[in-house]
């Protein structure tokens, strides 16, 4: 398939997942500000902004700022509105491979954003977060139901999995790095949608190391870092098999596959206490892994050929 289209699909996967996860994080964050009587709002907001990669100083941080930066900023790909608009732009250029239903779903989402924004101003942001979660589920649900499992599907899911690794590790960071202003593990689990699966798995008691373990290592919960890495790895293996022959004897063919596989084995074979003892470093590493893998995918599949540049000849 065309590299350009593949890239669009990859980024649709990433952006939609990002919007979904950001909505989940913000929903829990705002609800917590409302419900926790002892919270230090500025610290909590500053921490959240820092961990989402857009730090500001403590005095400037408040809920208004958090929502502006992470929900409504049209120009930033880290905000919900920005990510959904970017996903729709990518879809516009790839309409011939996307099913009409997926395109329509993304377009409807995009068109509804201004109205959702007004609603959020009036009734509080919860309705927006809920809307975003539902629409993301719809996009991926339609993809699941209407796309053939060919390369286009693989790129979409690869993007989604890599983004999930990144976002879940950021969510974990909000807990372990924020000190007093940190949300409880219950909230972290709730924001990833993992609360009820966790309760059923560990029968009710939320304790730190189990919760961290669940979000990092659980094989069966689809939002855990491990499960997402495994899925990304499977997509990469499949993509490479289609393009590379004779590479089945030694190692793996692609750089991205190597990076993702290494991260996965690190999680799989490191003992949990060791992992938790250096959790902040591991989480940062995971986030950088995603960037590196994303860059490698881009290099391998989307821009294998350096773009041609036309240089005007010197007049002479």
């Amino acid at each position, binding site marked *: 398939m065309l590299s350009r289209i593949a*890239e669009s699909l990859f*980024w649709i996967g*990433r*952006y939609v997942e*990002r919007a979904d996860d950001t909505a989940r994080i913000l929903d829990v964050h*705002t*609800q917590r500000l*409302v*419900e*926790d*009587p*002892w919270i230090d709002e500025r610290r909590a907001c500053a*921490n959240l902004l*820092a*961990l*989402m*990669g*857009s*730090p500001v100083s403590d005095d400037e941080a408040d809920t208004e700022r958090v929502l502006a930066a992470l929900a409504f900023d049209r120009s930033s*790909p*880290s905000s919900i509105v920005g990510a959904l608009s*970017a996903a729709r732009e*990518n879809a516009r250029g790839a309409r011939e491979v996307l099913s009409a239903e997926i395109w329509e779903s993304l377009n409807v989402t995009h068109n509804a954003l201004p109205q959702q924004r007004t609603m959020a101003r009036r*009734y*509080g942001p*919860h309705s927006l977060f809920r809307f975003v979660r539902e629409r993301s589920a719809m996009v991926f649900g339609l993809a699941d139901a209407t796309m053939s499992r060919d390369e286009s599907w693989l790129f979409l899911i690869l993007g989604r999995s890599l983004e999930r690794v*990144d976002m879940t590790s950021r969510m974990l960071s909000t807990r*372990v*790095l*924020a*000190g*007093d202003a940190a949300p*409880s*593990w*219950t909230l972290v689990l709730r924001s990833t949608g993992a609360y*009820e699966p*966790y*309760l*059923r798995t*560990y*029968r*009710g*008691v*939320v*304790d*730190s*190391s*189990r919760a*961290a373990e669940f979000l990092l290592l659980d094989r069966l919960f689809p939002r855990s870092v491990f499960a997402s890495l495994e899925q990304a790895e499977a997509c990469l293996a499949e993509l490479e098999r289609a393009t590379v022959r004779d590479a089945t004897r030694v190692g793996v063919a692609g750089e991205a596959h190597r990076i993702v596989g290494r991260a996965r084995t690190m999680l799989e074979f490191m003992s949990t206490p060791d992992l938790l003892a250096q*959790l*902040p*470093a591991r989480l*940062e590493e995971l*986030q*950088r892994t*995603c*960037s590196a893998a*994303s860059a490698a995918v*881009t290099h391998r599949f*989307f821009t294998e050929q350096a773009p041609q540049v036309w240089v005007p000849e010197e007049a002479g």
Partner: protein
Amino acid sequence: MADLFDGYLLGQQWDEMFGAVGDPRPAYAGLFASLQPIDGEELAARADLLSQTYRDAGVTFAHAGEEQPFPLDIVPRVIGAEEWDVIERGVAQRVLALEAFLADVYGAGQVFADRVVPRSVVTTSAHFHRQAHGLVPPNGVRVHVSGIDLVRDEAGDFRVLEDNLRSPSGVSYVITNRAAMSQVLPELFADHRIQPVDDYPTRLLAALKASAPSNVADPTVVVLTPGVYNSAYFEHALLARQMGVELVEGRDLVCAGNQVSMRTTDGQRRVDVIYRRIDDEFLDPVHFRPDSVIGCAGVLNAARAGRVTIANAVGNGVADDKLLFTWVPDLVRYYLGEEPVLQNAETYRLDDRDTVEWVLESLDQLVLKPVDGSGGKGIVIGPRADQRTLEELAVKVRATPRDWIAQKPIGLSTCPTLVGGRIAPRHVDLRPFAINDGGKVWVLPGGLTRVALPEGELVVNSSQGGGSKDTWVLSRPRPVGVPEDADPARDLTTIEFTAADLPEDPPTQDPGPPNDNALAQSQQQQQGADMAVSALGEGTPC
């Protein structure tokens, strides 16, 4: 200026929000200031959103076989920190006294020997079960969960209206009310410090685990429900989900050789604690109603053998009997050697001829309650009843005085409530919930405030078309030096790092491929050029 509270009339009763017209009590000052500028239509729109939220989430109460959304009023009820202290102490005290009484009733019976309570009160109670005699629960707790119904009298004092020690329902609405309110009206919360309610399931689970038979390392807890047609099924499901335990029906359980198990895809799995929401009579067809199909045969024998814990214990009904209620203050003094913190609502026993005669003469000024009724059924409010009802009542009371108690009508306090786009006073009560884990009685801060939506209505029971309110207990600033999770049961391990561990420059999120503006422009130029050419073509014939 016309505002929401215009025309809000204060009656004889205590009003929760106002001491005088337009003058809110201190606990309500913040709420009043936030609500006043909102106009009626806006508030009504929010209320619609609130009920929409409830419909979507399926927060329902099955009434007369039909699933109905549980009405949640948009104006919260606020309880100040000092007031709450009194309720908390009073409820915990009462639960401890009733625990001691139950242990006595199903054990030595010292309280009868000391002539504090006549034995006949207990033996004539429909909820006294000889089957429970001598059954000692593993950690001594019989009242794992209780709901103590309180009302506020004209002077503003909380009084106990009744105790619920069997399976009090309503706690799920406390949890969902808070979640829905904070989504729909976040700005109301901004100026308050409100004690959270969402750790109730965690506390409940800890208490249930603590009550497991002593030789079990990691007890399996289940919630036993009568099934989806039960009026409180929503609550059973919510508690099971939030505790992460199985919600079972009687047919899922099997008891063999005094061991209770549940049928799973992996074969039978042992069950150690059953939090049952089924009445005693239906729990075990071996001992109680043989026609019960929602219970589990043999479960009581298993409990007697110490192989399973039933929570709440069988036979608790004897202590929340409305006749025994009149002795509870004496029980507090007898068992704890303390004065009761919370007074009973003024109640008369119909145990001597004179009182019966007096009650029969003044039926039209009293409230008559059947002693074993629940859910507001059978209550006759004298001043509002018609002649025929009173005559029928007199016949019944004369026939079986043991079945009735009489109370002076209490002017239930009123609380501002949104009715038809305006705020009007409506009567409220309060049911705080207490969990006893054997070490401590923990009272959920807040509890369920029920509101009688029809004007002047005094019965606020949820099975009689009542609604509810989110109940806020204001908290003091957190004491310095006490960490957030001071409760050791909550977290066994901690993974703590400080901001110093924060990476120097946190990784930013990957931006996508840049929007190629140059490309977009040239795509547009192409289009523009096409149009220019065609325009040119038309304009200049050659």
